[in-house]
């Protein structure tokens, strides 16, 4: 009785009513377009505002401070000057450069989730793949110090990308061969990567900062200058300025779009995502595509880790167990991808939103209205609400459709009034 039966045949009605993940996504894309994401974000900000209001702060002023903290007020006084003491315009420019650094990471962790989604899988393991990318980038960025800059960067980035792909590929292989649910296996892989990274970067770990003076500092070796990404806006690396990693992320968006929409690989991946059975019937190797899609997903997340370490998103090009503990970028990638409806443009916009929230509520925030500690948690609340409501597209589509259904009923009355 308690042995679950695996060969139960679903009735066609049931299959149609629940549908696959990708079918649901395509449904809401056809029906709602950008309405669901926009409505979701507005609603999440409203709810977040209510929490702020209920705890005795002014939500409008709080959001304005977060907006400024993210450097989005730069559009009112654009400047390229990011000097720390350069007044409001320079401060805005500096904040914006930092926000774009966060956006860089989130674009890639978002793509990591989005690509797997398009193949009907949920890659919840972006965080682990990101750590693996950081580990490999740290190892190669430190140990091959003699190389000249361009090959060194290229080596570290590609190796980290590959490592992320392999790490996610484990989940893909398990899914394709023994049917292990990718959510479970990627969660486990996340924590394995978490502890391996904590061990490698921690005191006495193999990648720990060498030298007796640093013996008890829980940080990795600083990446050698030849592997550090060049900065094009602002000064210096390590929370200094915006590096070329931003363009790498933008290029990844293009690659993602071309791969999905203009190649056979993308066609097969999407076909498997829509309906694995139909894809198999059409001659597509489903197992191969599951593995491939997971590996490509992981590649994006691994690249995100490498760009963070080699670029300006880590202090002094080092990483430590404390960074491992607080890092959430892989998980925020889920919100980014879902909000962006798993498309390239949507992922970019989602990453910009969450990048702004992430920086605007932490280091960037200077506010008398709301403390940084409160604002940081506000980000998590908004993020949770966004994910909750983006997933519930049926609710928003229902509300939207019922609004449209009301229109024709009102229409006959309107001319009557006009005539009278």
């Amino acid at each position: 009785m308690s042995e679950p039966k695996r060969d139960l045949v679903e009735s066609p009605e049931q299959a149609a009513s629940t549908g696959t993940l990708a079918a649901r996504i395509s449904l809401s894309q056809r029906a709602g377009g950008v309405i669901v994401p926009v409505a979701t974000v507005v609603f999440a900000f409203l709810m977040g505002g209510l929490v702020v209001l209920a705890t005795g702060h002014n939500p409008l002023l709080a959001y304005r401070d977060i907006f400024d903290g993210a450097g989005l007020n730069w559009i009112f006084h654009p400047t390229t000057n990011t000097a720390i003491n350069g007044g409001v315009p320079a401060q805005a420019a500096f904040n914006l450069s930092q926000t774009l650094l966060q956006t860089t990471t989130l674009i890639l962790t978002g793509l990591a989730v989005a690509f797997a989604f398009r193949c009907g899988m949920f890659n919840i393991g972006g965080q682990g793949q990101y750590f693996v990318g950081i580990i490999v980038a740290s190892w190669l960025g430190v140990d091959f110090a003699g190389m000249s800059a361009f090959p060194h960067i290229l080596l570290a980035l590609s190796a980290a990308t590959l490592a992320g792909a392999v790490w996610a590929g484990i989940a893909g292989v398990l899914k394709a061969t023994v049917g292990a649910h990718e959510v479970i296996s990627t969660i486990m892989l996340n924590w394995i990567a978490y502890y391996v990274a904590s061990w490698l970067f921690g005191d006495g770990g193999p990648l720990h900062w060498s030298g007796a003076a640093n013996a008890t500092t829980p940080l990795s070796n600083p990446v050698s200058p030849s592997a550090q990404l060049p900065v094009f806006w602002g000064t210096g690396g390590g929370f200094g300025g915006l590096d070329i990693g931003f363009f790498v992320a933008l290029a990844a968006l293009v690659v993602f779009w071309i791969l999905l929409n203009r190649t056979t690989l993308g066609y097969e991946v999407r076909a498997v995502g829509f309906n694995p059975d139909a894809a198999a019937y059409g001659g597509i190797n489903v197992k191969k595509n599951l593995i491939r899609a997971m590996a490509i997903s992981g590649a994006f997340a691994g690249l995100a880790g490498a760009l963070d370490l080699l670029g300006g998103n880590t202090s002094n090009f080092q990483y430590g167990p404390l960074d491992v503990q607080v890092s959430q970028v892989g998980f925020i990638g889920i919100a980014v991808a879902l909000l962006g409806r798993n498309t390239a443009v949507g992922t970019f916009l989602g990453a910009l939103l969450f990048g702004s929230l992430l920086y605007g509520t932490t280091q960037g925030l200077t506010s008398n209205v709301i403390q940084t500690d409160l604002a940081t948690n506000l980000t998590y609340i908004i993020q949770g609400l966004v994910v909750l409501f983006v997933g519930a597209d049926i609710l928003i589509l229902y509300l939207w459709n019922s609004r449209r259904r009301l229109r024709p009923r009102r229409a006959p009355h309107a001319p009557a009034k006009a005539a009278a």
Partner: protein
Amino acid sequence: MSTWTQRLENPVSDGLRNPAATGYLALFLGAFAAFLAIPPIEARSPLWPIAVGIVAIALGIWTATRGRRRLGYGAVAAGLVGIGLGILATRSGTGNLGTVFDATLIAQTFGLGTPLVFGAIAGMFSERSGVINIGLEGMMLMGAFWGLYGADKGGTWIVGLLLGMAVGGLLALVYAFFAIHLRSDQIVGGTAVNFLALGITGYFFQQFYNGQVTGSVSVAPNIHIAGLGHFLEGSIGNLSILTWASFALVILAWVVLFKTPIGLRIRACGEHPRAADTVGISVYAVRYGCVVLSGMLVAIGGVYLSLGPQGNGTFIFDMTSGKGFIALAAMIFGNWRPAGAFGAAILFGFSSALALKLQVYSSQAATLFQILPYVLTLVAVAGVIGRTVAPAADGKPYAKQ
């Protein structure tokens, strides 16, 4: 149900000729090989663990050739690991071994295992009814914070327990509405719950306590049992009341799930909701009930974190730090069964306790040791040692017709 009755009907003599029984015996011997070298037995010669380990390997191979291949190879692996650990232990000093393997290790195993037991049983109720609950982590975190808040403002830990359970259940209710009525993707919904809980607890922790609990809070008491002898008293003589409650919960969960009509209904909704609907079971009602119950149970695990002997009336940001996910892993490792989930939760608690103790030697080894639960679960879902089988309709939304 069938396996339990079969096992009870088989006399021991039959069991020895049964490859399954031999396989389990071999698994036990493999584990025993490692324990030979540590207190209280403390064999000082590496020959003992090697001998016992070889017996385990031989029995494992025999089992594997008799058709129970996974069990057999599992026993072989256990024998090899047992020999390895046994040899390592004999080479280490008795003094060091004494500091690691003592009665407090058992006490800590149960202590660290308690939130995992609550979480695993909670997740089991939800998943047996057909709703995946990735949000265990968030619901546990809610229990931890609001439990503390209730104990602080209400003056007694009972109020904290009730408030924690209520808030955990409330968050689960929200999740249930999205997962069941709106049929949103359950993984997405669960992820959202985790974010929400992190944000809400973090926000109110700052708002109410400014990030630091000051002053003493009423905590859940320990139950002292005297007169058990030195070793037993050190291990189970001073456990939290919530730890004992978790043991009771396992038995209760087993009885409810497998011995009552309610349990049958829950499992029916998880295996074949349409069939359940046809015979007049309200699938939605059962699933709502199970998810809310799941939120309340896992919240007790959270309350234990903040008000139990480890938290002792404090809260820190992201206090659960992945314990909800380990609980989820324990439930999967335990194959969606109360006894299995309990065993896995205690095993994972043991590995955490051992990691704590190992910090005496080396913090790096202790860090690495914490990987164990996740690797074991990964191996379990990969089907290397005994395939785990989820309820058939787990994670599939049900649309009424």
